[in-house]
């Protein structure tokens, strides 16, 4: 037996997962409160003690970790036009597993700089202009950023014609020049920037967040937790040499404060008569809905879906629904321990998934032309995706998870939204996705096999309003 220990220093819980990689077997999982104020090691020791009760004494060949503790990897993304380089910068940032705390376009002014100083980002991604295109904005923005009092490294991924000049203007800030996130108009190139972000995370951020002592306990804190989940679902979809994946998929991580949606799918127009508009989106795409969450962001769900629908789905009077939403927002640690709260959580989870997946997917617009009807697509067409992976406490413990999941699918309520028509619902019952993303770097086949075994299928969900 060769055992590997995988650790996720989460914002609330430190989760540990033990895997026997020779037999691709999950040995056990455990969790304890993260103790970031005192010593993160305490929480880890507590979790390991619990794990040992399940697995018995195990000698680990490797200990790998990811972290979203101490606020996660907090980033600001800057571009020129909101729909073009600024969007490319946002996609790069989110795809790298960072928390996007600020996004700016055009020329930064003094108020923006003051705001960035308050935000205190860990890293800033500075873009603007295609190669050989506009240089005025990025040069101006570099000059402005150099005046920030906060010390942060800047990843420069804009117009290559003036990259050196940008680095010079950014001084005394440390900067790292990588390929443009949009070298040609509407061509996305975010991997080099993401690679640089990941390296910075390893080199600087772990130390800056006071996690280096923990990094010494393990063989390295490799990436932010969302990047680990992204790696896991990418492996699950694509497979690896010698082992096929399960194909294109969407993954939803429903949390208390935010909802993350990942899609590993091309999303290209399905008919060659469809015209694609705007920036093509990445094959592996992550979006984060900061206003959609089961507790801290419960009001965001109600606002997005409206109280009448929330109440109807919860089978409660609207007054009651309002009262419960307020209660949950004030009592973020409450569990659905009454029938009313249970009904409410079902409605909240359903509408959270509906909103977050609809925002992630692209849209199709019918345009009437003299030559007949034409279809214009923006964003990813995920109607043909047939796997829906669900993770996060609210979904793992939900009773009617298939019914909740059906809300992620195509609906006549929003016929323009390109969500899957039908999908097999796979639930991350043992909460192992982040761990498997960590394992993927060293033992991809094992990580893939464990996921295939441990993700529980709840059958095919069908869109109800087709």
């Amino acid at each position, binding site marked *: 037996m060769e055992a590997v220990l995988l650790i996720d220093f989460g914002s609330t819980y430190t989760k540990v997962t033990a895997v026997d990689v020779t037999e691709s077997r999950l040995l056990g999982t455990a969790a304890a409160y993260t103790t970031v104020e005192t010593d993160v090691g305490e929480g880890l020791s507590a979790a390991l003690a619990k794990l040992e009760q399940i697995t018995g004494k195990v000698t680990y060949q490797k200990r790998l970790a990811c972290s979203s503790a101490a606020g996660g990897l907090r980033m600001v993304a800057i571009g*020129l*036009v909101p*729909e*073009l*380089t600024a969007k490319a910068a946002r996609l790069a940032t989110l795809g790298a597993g960072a928390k996007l705390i600020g996004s700016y376009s055009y020329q930064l002014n003094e108020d923006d700089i003051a705001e960035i100083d308050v935000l205190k980002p860990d890293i800033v991604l500075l873009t*603007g*202009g*295609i190669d*050989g*295109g*506009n*240089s*005025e904005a990025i040069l101006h923005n570099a000059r402005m950023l150099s005046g920030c009092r906060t010390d942060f490294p800047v990843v420069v991924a804009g117009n290559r014609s003036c990259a050196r000049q940008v680095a010079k203007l950014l001084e005394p800030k440390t900067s790292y020049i990588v390929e443009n996130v*949009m070298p*040609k*108009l509407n061509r996305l190139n975010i991997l080099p920037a993401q690679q640089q972000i990941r390296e910075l995370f390893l080199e600087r951020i772990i130390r800056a967040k006071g996690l280096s002592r923990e990094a010494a306990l393990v063989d390295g804190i490799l990436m932010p937790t969302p990047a680990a989940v992204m790696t896991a679902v990418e492996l699950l979809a694509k497979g690896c040499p010698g082992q096929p994946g399960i194909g294109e998929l969407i993954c939803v991580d429903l949390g208390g404060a935010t909802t993350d949606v990942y899609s590993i799918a091309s999303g290209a127009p399905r008919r060659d008569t469809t*015209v694609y*508009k*705007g920036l093509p989106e990445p094959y592996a795409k992550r979006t984060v809905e900061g206003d959609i969450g089961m507790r801290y962001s419960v009001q965001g769900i109600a606002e997005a879906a409206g109280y009448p629908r929330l109440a109807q789905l919860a089978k409660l009077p609207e007054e009651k629904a309002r009262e419960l939403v307020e209660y949950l927002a004030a009592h973020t640690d409450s569990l659905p321990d009454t029938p009313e709260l249970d009904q409410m959580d079902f409605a909240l989870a359903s509408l959270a998934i509906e909103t977050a997946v609809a925002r992630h997917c692209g849209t199709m617009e019918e*345009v*009437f*032309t*003299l*030559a007949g009807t*034409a279809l*214009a697509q923006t964003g990813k067409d995920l109607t043909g995706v047939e796997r829906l992976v669900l993770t996060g406490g609210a979904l793992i413990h939900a009773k009617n998870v298939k019914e909740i999941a059906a809300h992620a699918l195509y609906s006549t309520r929003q016929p323009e939204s390109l969500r899957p028509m039908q999908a097999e619902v796979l639930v991350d019952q043992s909460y192992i996705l982040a761990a498997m993303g960590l394992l993927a770097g060293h033992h991809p086949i094992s990580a893939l096999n464990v996921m295939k075994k441990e993700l529980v299928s709840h059958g095919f969900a069908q869109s109800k309003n087709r």
Partner: protein
Amino acid sequence: MEKKKIVIGVIGADVHAVGNKILYHAFTEAGFDVINLGVMVSQEEYINAAIESNADAIVVSSLYGHGELDCRGLREKCDESGLRGILLYVGGNIVVGKQPFEEVEKRFKAMGFDRVFGPGTPPETTIAALKEDLGITD
């Protein structure tokens, strides 16, 4: 000398793709750096592309007769977006029915277009105009 950059595309709900491809090849062949937005292009898309690419000209095509409606306000939006003085061309079947070209040209020039080209204009004519207006000497 650095290549001059031009943004091209077919405006509005117009799906005529063939002429657009011909223009793309002709302009590229003539030595321009061409950013082709394809068909069904909105005014905002031309402007956004011109900003990111620092383009020297926007060349708007329209073949389905609604060009007059689609093009209205483009110059003002360019001014608003900081693209003051950018060269604006329009060409194709840009109006409904058969109208005297001189009148059509007058109307589009009043809308802020620097050059207006009627139906059946060969690409060479537009290329020559671009070279003249952008100060390119062969």
